[in-house]
């Protein structure tokens, strides 16, 4: 451990800048060359990354077990949906019960609607959080899940605002033609999260995660920090929801049924609950993997022999088994609670050399 390499601060900044330039070039390249099916998958990956990051902030870094992301996502999605569909289309769309006059005439550009969605989600999170964040562990989980469901049920019944079960369609598809929207928001989210965690707030969050009673004894205002984390998480979930609505072009309450949150849970568990880099990896693996596992849903024949195992539903079974295996055997996730750091990356070759040169007795009686 004592021959870790050190890099000067300037060098580190330079490397980060280089990384961003490369990333942007990659995105530009992908944007121009992939077909719209792959583009859709990549967009979804980026959106799920944002959601994963928001959930990881609350669950992984602050240690609050929140299952409410689906509800906040719904708020953001509906904000974009309601306020960006062209006014002329609203009458035809709300054919069952006319749209509430207060919102009928408001049309906002996409960015404004998206930010509004995030803000609304944050406000709702504040209202929910204030009473609920006092609860411990599992109770908090169920309470947040409950609120997510309440939001969904309310949306289903508010016919004149959300069009109820009919949902809203023909949302102008700003994001689906390009990768830039989702990826830039994702990158901004990632940057924000990193800065937040490195700040004193971030340290407070981690302290709360480790032992909140001790944290309180050390003078950290538990309530304020928990609410802050929760609200920020909800804000980004709302933003992601807005992007999601624009990507799909249609929303309805059924999409935000609470099992949706399980997807994000898997992402952060897979990536490592205390690691943002892990979340990014996890989001891409899960989203893309789920899509490409589709092949399991169709009859497969090897050498002319049809294998009866492959029929609709197998994909999700395999997915669930993967989830279980990861939770049981690898519950620290890919990155555990470490991040990619330049020291780690540049020191990698050295570390590998070290491992191989030490000889067989290295690991001792460690776990297998």
């Amino acid at each position, binding site marked *: 451990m004592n021959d870790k390499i050190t890099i000067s601060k300037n060098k580190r900044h330079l490397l980060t800048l280089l990384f961003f330039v490369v990333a942007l070039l990659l995105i530009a390249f992908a944007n121009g060359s992939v077909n719209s099916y792959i583009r859709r998958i990549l967009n979804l990956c980026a959106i799920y990354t944002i959601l994963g990051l928001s959930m990881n902030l609350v669950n992984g870094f602050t240690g609050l077990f929140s299952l409410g992301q689906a509800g906040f996502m719904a708020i953001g999605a509906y904000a974009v949906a309601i306020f960006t569909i062209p006014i002329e289309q609203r009458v035809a769309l709300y054919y069952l019960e006319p749209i509430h006059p207060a919102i009928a005439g408001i049309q906002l550009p996409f960015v404004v609607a998206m930010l509004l969605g995030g803000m609304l989600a944050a406000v709702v999170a504040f209202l929910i959080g204030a009473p609920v964040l006092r609860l411990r562990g599992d109770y908090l989980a169920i309470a947040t899940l409950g609120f997510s469901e309440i939001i969904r049920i309310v949306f289903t019944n508010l016919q004149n605002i959300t069009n109820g079960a009919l949902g809203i369609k023909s949302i102008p598809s700003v994001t689906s033609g390009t990768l830039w929207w989702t990826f830039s928001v994702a990158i901004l989210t990632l940057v924000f999260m990193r800065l937040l965690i490195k700040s004193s707030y971030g340290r407070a969050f981690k302290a709360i995660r480790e032992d909140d009673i001790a944290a309180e004894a050390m003078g950290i205002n538990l309530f304020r920090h928990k609410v802050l984390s929760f609200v920020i998480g909800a804000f980004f979930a709302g933003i992601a929801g807005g992007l999601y609505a624009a990507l799909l072009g249609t929303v309805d309450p059924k999409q935000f049924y609470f099992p949706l949150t399980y997807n994000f849970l898997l992402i952060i568990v897979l990536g490592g609950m205390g690691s943002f880099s892990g979340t990014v990896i996890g989001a891409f693996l899960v989203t893309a993997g789920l899509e490409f596992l589709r092949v399991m849903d169709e009859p497969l024949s090897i050498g002319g022999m049809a294998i009866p195992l492959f029929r609709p*539903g197998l994909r999700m079974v395999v997915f669930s088994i993967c989830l279980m295996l990861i939770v049981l055997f690898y519950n620290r996730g890919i990155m555990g609670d470490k991040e990619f750091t330049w020291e780690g990356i540049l020191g990698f070759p050295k570390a590998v050399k070290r491992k191989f040169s030490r000889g067989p007795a290295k690991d001792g009686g460690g776990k297998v």
Partner: protein
Amino acid sequence: MDLSILAQHLTNGISFGSLYALIAIGYTMVYGILRLINFAHGDIFMMAAYLTVFGIAFNLPWIVAIILVIGMTALVGVLIEKAAYKPLRDAPKMSVMISAIGVSYLLQNLATYLFTGRPMSFPSLPLLTTPMTIGSVTMLPLTIVTPVTTLLLLGVLLFVINRTKLGMAMRAVSRDYETAKLMGVKINQVISYTFAIGSALAAIGAILWGMKYPQVAPTMGVTPGLKCFIAAVVGGIGNVKGAVLGGFILGMVEILLVAFMPSLSGYRDAFAFVMLIVILLVKPTGLLGEKVTEKV
């Protein structure tokens, strides 16, 4: 609303509530011992329903089928504990919860894959499902059998918990896990019995539920499971009597909500969650629960 209509509503509420009670007991028992919300409980309930469908489809006589299903479901519950919860007993609480969610998800997807998403019809037992009329109220014999069964089972369970050695071990473990272990209580055995009993009760609940609502689908356990957990929390989680009380209350409230405010019937499920949140804020330990202090 006239009296006979009200009587009809109340009968329905009690019957419905007792189904919730049966399932809620499973949640509360597991939580009392392991401090774990067994998200998979609702799906164990669903599996029991499917097992019954197949049992009867194989032309087994009802009694045999019922006993087999209860036994198999108990086994499934124990297996799930051994496979998915035991390995994580020393892991942080969140991991076990996620594991429970994972098991729930797996069971649902497995059922969808094996039995397709198309709902199957639950076999009916004419003895219990032929409508009869008492006074001005029409109902099935099942409507009376259900609460009676629940209360009987509750009695048996309370006897086991308070008067048997196993029960004493259960109480010890739920009171203080570490000390019980040190005092020589066979923890693994106690936990297995807990899961077995909880799952068996869920199986009985599934059979009674299936006879009343004869539609079996892979997601049939999701909403009842969640609501029954809420019932257990309302009554006081960890307390069996509380679970039964919570189940009855939740069932009644749901029925009466639709009865007295039909325009809000779409919000029916939301009310369960509202009740949950109110209880968690006002009396988090539940109606019959006891206060637990956190040691630093």
